């Protein structure tokens, strides 16, 4: 358990008595990234939301550094395990105010220097700071959401399709940024079908079908065997049918 930041045990979530995820167990070693893939409706987003208790599991447990997450106050837990949804939903306020939001919920403040550094980490110019979020593109809004999550300096980052709305160049930039963060202490669970992310930052993967883990393994090892072939094939199929990210503008 010492090197495990997140331990997920027999997780099950039912909705209307219908199981959305079942028997999900995995360990997330410290400073690594677990990739989660699977077809639409396989329970990937539900899994992420259950890890930081946006959804209460019907059964099973999640441990953060050996502590049952139910023993941690929920707002404190969500500052340690931050979830970034696929569909961004930002308040119609300037970019700066959005970045200040997470620390403000905890009664903290964030320095101007830190705000600028976060913005540059996600590839947004600091000139955007006074701009209203409504004027940002979908990809820019997602990157701002990422900066907002990082402002909390989480131990675990849960990302839902982080590159779904980014071009290949920005995907590479975000992959590099997450990779650098992982090397300096962050751990992550990323839902994605993006092979760039799989190859560049993923260490292990799980593949969900109908809420269960159908396949799992280490990405580098698997690359050499037949299982890996099947994984890439399935990822390619999922990528080509992946829906476009939805961006909602708040009124």
């Amino acid at each position: 358990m010492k090197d495990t930041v997140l331990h997920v045990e027999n997780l099950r979530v039912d909705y209307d008595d219908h199981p959305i995820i079942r028997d999900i167990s995995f360990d997330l070693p410290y400073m690594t990234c677990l990739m989660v893939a699977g077809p639409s409706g396989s329970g990937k987003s539900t899994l992420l939301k259950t890890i930081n208790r946006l959804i209460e599991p019907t059964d099973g447990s999640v441990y953060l550094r050996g502590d049952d997450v139910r023993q941690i106050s929920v707002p404190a837990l969500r500052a340690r395990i931050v979830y970034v949804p696929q569909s961004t939903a930002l308040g119609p306020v300037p970019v700066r105010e959005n970045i200040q939001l997470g620390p403000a919920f905890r009664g903290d403040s964030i320095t101007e220097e830190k705000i600028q550094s976060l913005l540059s980490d996600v590839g947004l110019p600091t000139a955007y700071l006074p701009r209203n979020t409504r004027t940002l593109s979908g990809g820019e809004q997602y990157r701002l959401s990422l900066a907002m999550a990082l402002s909390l300096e989480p131990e675990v980052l849960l990302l839902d399709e982080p590159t779904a709305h980014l071009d290949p160049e920005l995907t590479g930039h975000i992959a590099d940024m997450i990779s650098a963060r992982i090397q300096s202490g962050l751990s992550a669970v990323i839902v994605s079908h993006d092979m760039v992310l799989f190859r560049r930052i993923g260490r292990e993967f799980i593949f969900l079908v109908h809420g269960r883990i159908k396949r799992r393994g280490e990405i580098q090892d698997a690359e050499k065997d037949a299982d890996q072939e099947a994984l890439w094939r399935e990822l390619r199929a999922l990528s080509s049918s992946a829906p476009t990210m939805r961006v909602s503008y708040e009124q």
Partner: protein
Amino acid sequence: MNSDPYYEISAVSLAVGFILLVIPSGFSKLLRLGIVKDLIWGAVRAAIQLMIVGALLGWVLSRREPYIPVAGLFLMLLSAGINAQRRQKFPYPWLWLKATGVIVTATILPLVFILIFVVRADPWYTPRLMIPLAGMVMGNSMSAVVLGLDRFYAGFKDRWALIEARLALGASRYQACLPVVRGAARASLLPIINTMMIIGIVHLPGMIVGQITAGGDPNQAARYQLMIMYAIATANALATFGVIFLGISRFMTNHHQIRYETVREDLQ
């Protein structure tokens, strides 16, 4: 003080007043609005209701036992709670009881305050003062409950993704709902603010008119009106606060999670 006599309206005189309705009826008929029956039925119904209330109030006001006006007050509050549920766009089981609780709290506090500290009624439950004042405050509390809850629900329905995103950043359920709460609170407080802005300029409200026509001193009537406006503003704020608390606990768990199933059932 005004030395003019108090002009009583006899039943016959009231019937004469009914003649006035010939004009809106004729107007409705001329334009084929199809509401003549509703108009007449509304007028008759109002007459019956007010006659009963008048008789009932006459009896209540003549009694000296404190429990009678207090019981009457609670009956009025219960009826307001039930009405608040009926007028709700997104009603749910037992809302009437919770709405009654909110209306009771929102009404009683400013009402007792003005009776004891402003009017200095002795005893404070003097029916002639408490019942009509309670009626005015309560009616407004009920509207604030209906409006506040409607706006909160509509806001939640439109902006649940924003609320979820704020929760994901470590917001408590109250912090997460703040953008929706602000919209709902504004909506239910604006009517009384607007009324205070134009009172006496554009229209004379019921209380001032009532006191003056009953031969009261216009200065005193204005003071009573002001006092009731302040009480209504306070009651509206309390009702809005209470009803938003109700809405948050309906849609969110103590663990700062959205009750997705309840949201779907209530707002579909």
